[in-house]
């Protein structure tokens, strides 16, 4: 039923008639595009069909709504549709990629992929998949990323503390540099490490160099996230600590950092998750290797994304399955780190809040034990003096 123009519409007024308009526009635009696309112009391709359908749906939806209700309402609804589609597109793509890798990879994962390396690879062997694996790459990735994180996280925390707590001159410069660094192409980081260490013969390819490149890459992101976390620590806590006579270092160390701990763990884990997937800097630093090399300080080392890229670029029948399996292992590693970061960074659960309350209670009683006697003595002394005359 058509509404009279001028009747006020509540923002959430989206009744049965509106749903009807939506569905009818979807349906008729589908038919229209179907006729034009497949019957008149003989096109093909599901993707193109979807795009055309969507375009004509939006046009139709806008026209119908503006005829029945109002132009402004039509614009509003079409805009909402666009926004919702955009978001669902992103979610859809993420779900598609994760689902696709899992579906393709999970079925191909075998136990020996985790225990063997590529040294016995021979393309002619029919049972080759039972003799090879990516254990060397897993070890390499864990070591490289571990070392990178071990250097990057303390440096990032110190930088973030400097930016947020210490302040003063240089803050602006450091912040600009951190922002600019966060946009540094990963391949440039690799090339840089290569040019100062390998090209000058100071070192040869080693897993350690990969760690340095990854350090450069994750430092800015961890710094920025940590800074955000530090910023939401309530100023009252800091002031209380300073007012109690604690030094600035003591305040940061015992008040600010513990308060921001869960957020900092999240920041670090997200940085690690990004580092795990970086491929480009590893060409020039870890270089890749077919054998197990557990020593990150000496000799070329393999890494999961690097070995995956090798598999993709040299398509051999047997390796495709291994490539899918490797992709699955890599993605699940990233996913685990990601979920862990979310879980640890979540606002405290009831249980944790309860535990914290208990702790604060016990601490309060402790402080009272220490602090009370003096006060009590003084109080009693004054009261005695007052009472005595």
């Amino acid at each position, binding site marked *: 039923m058509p509404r009279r123009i001028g009747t006020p519409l509540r923002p959430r007024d989206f009744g049965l008639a509106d749903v009807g308009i939506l569905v009818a526009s979807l349906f008729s635009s589908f038919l229209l595009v179907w006729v034009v696309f497949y019957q008149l112009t003989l*096109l093909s391709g599901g993707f193109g069909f979807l795009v055309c359908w969507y375009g004509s749906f939006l046009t139709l939806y806008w026209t119908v709504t503006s005829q029945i209700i109002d132009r402004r309402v039509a614009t509003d609804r079409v805009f909402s549709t666009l926004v919702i589609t955009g978001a669902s597109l992103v979610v859809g793509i993420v779900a598609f990629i994760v689902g696709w890798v899992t579906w393709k990879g999970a079925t191909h994962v075998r136990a020996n992929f985790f225990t063997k390396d590529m040294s016995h690879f021979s393309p002619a062997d029919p049972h080759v998949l039972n003799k090879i694996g990516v254990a060397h790459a897993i070890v390499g990735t864990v070591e490289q990323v571990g070392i990178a994180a071990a250097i990057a996280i303390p440096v990032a925390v110190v930088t973030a503390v400097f930016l947020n707590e210490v302040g003063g001159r240089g803050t602006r410069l450091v912040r600009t540099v951190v922002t600019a660094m966060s946009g540094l192409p990963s391949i440039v980081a690799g090339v840089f490490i290569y040019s100062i260490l390998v090209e000058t013969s100071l070192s040869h390819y080693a897993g350690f160099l990969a760690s340095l490149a990854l350090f450069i890459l994750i430092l800015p992101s961890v710094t920025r996230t940590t800074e955000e976390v530090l910023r939401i620590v309530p100023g009252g806590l800091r002031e209380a600590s300073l007012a109690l006579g604690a030094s600035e270092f003591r305040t940061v160390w015992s008040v600010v950092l513990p308060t921001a701990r869960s957020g900092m763990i999240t920041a670090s884990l997200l940085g690690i998750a990004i580092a795990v997937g970086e491929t480009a800097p590893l060409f020039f630093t870890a270089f890749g290797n077919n054998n197990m090399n557990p020593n990150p300080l000496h000799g070329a080392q393999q890494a999961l994304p690097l070995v995956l890229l090798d598999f993709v670029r040299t398509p051999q029948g047997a390796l495709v399955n291994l490539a899918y399996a490797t*992709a699955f292992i890599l993605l699940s590693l990233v996913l685990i780190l990601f979920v862990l970061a979310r879980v640890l960074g979540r606002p405290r659960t009831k249980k944790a809040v309860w535990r914290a309350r208990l702790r604060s209670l016990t601490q309060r009683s402790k402080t009272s034990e220490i602090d009370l006697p003096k006060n009590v003595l003084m109080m009693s002394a004054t009261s005695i003096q007052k009472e005595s005359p």
Partner: protein
Amino acid sequence: MILFLIGLFLLIQGFPAFHVAGWSFFTSSGFQTVGKTKHFGVEASLYGTVVVAVIALAVGTPVALLTALFLSEYAPKGLRPYLIACVDLAAAIPSVIYGLWAIFELQPNVVGISGWLARHVAWIPIFKVTTPKVNASLFIAGLVVGIMIVPIVASISREVFSLTPPGEKEGALALGATKAAMIRRVVLPFGRGGMISAVMLGMGRALGETIAVVIILSETFQISPHILQSGGSTVAQLIAIHFGTGGPLGTHALLLAGLVLFAVTLAINLAASAIVSRSRSGAGVDL
């Protein structure tokens, strides 16, 4: 300091190549560093880099901004944290996996469109195709990179949008604006600086993206406006593919190419952060 060092070392290490090639490094293309006729340069690669970045932005920016608006204005409260996590997850998916997905799943689906455009709208120069195939093109590489920059642009813009003073938004709604009008008049102007910087950061990422491009694009050194046809080159891809193949001079040439890439992205990122610090976005808001 690290940034300065990066620039310095790349300059030192790239200098021998510059010595050989001179300014023709920027005006010639190819990678022939061994043998008698030395001929190398980054012209076609720079062109390809820019084309890929432009396509990526054209594809990625609208989707990213719509997503950011959905997350900050439309998403139901209960759903919002999960959607934000989903977008962050998209940023954490390794680029090699994006590349793998693109070559096995995306490309077969998109080639149809490329072919259709090439057949029917070839009178627009950029859609013309002179090669027999339309896969492995700059267009598809740009598409993948566009998908990859969506989470970055979306998460930064979302943060800026969510800083919009609620009073101004409610004021617009109270005056009878529809939600779309409110977003157009209040949220977008407020977040303009942040949006521009997000897009520029995304552009920096798109310029430097290596792995997905290496997987998708088949390397040819030619400057052609026909983005749909097979072949092309980007600077990052040049470095990744030819590393270790060109002898000592080749290595120097690649380091020089790295310096070029570094300088371009650094300039863009610095401009982005300058825009942010000057805009109204996020300023004057006391939480």
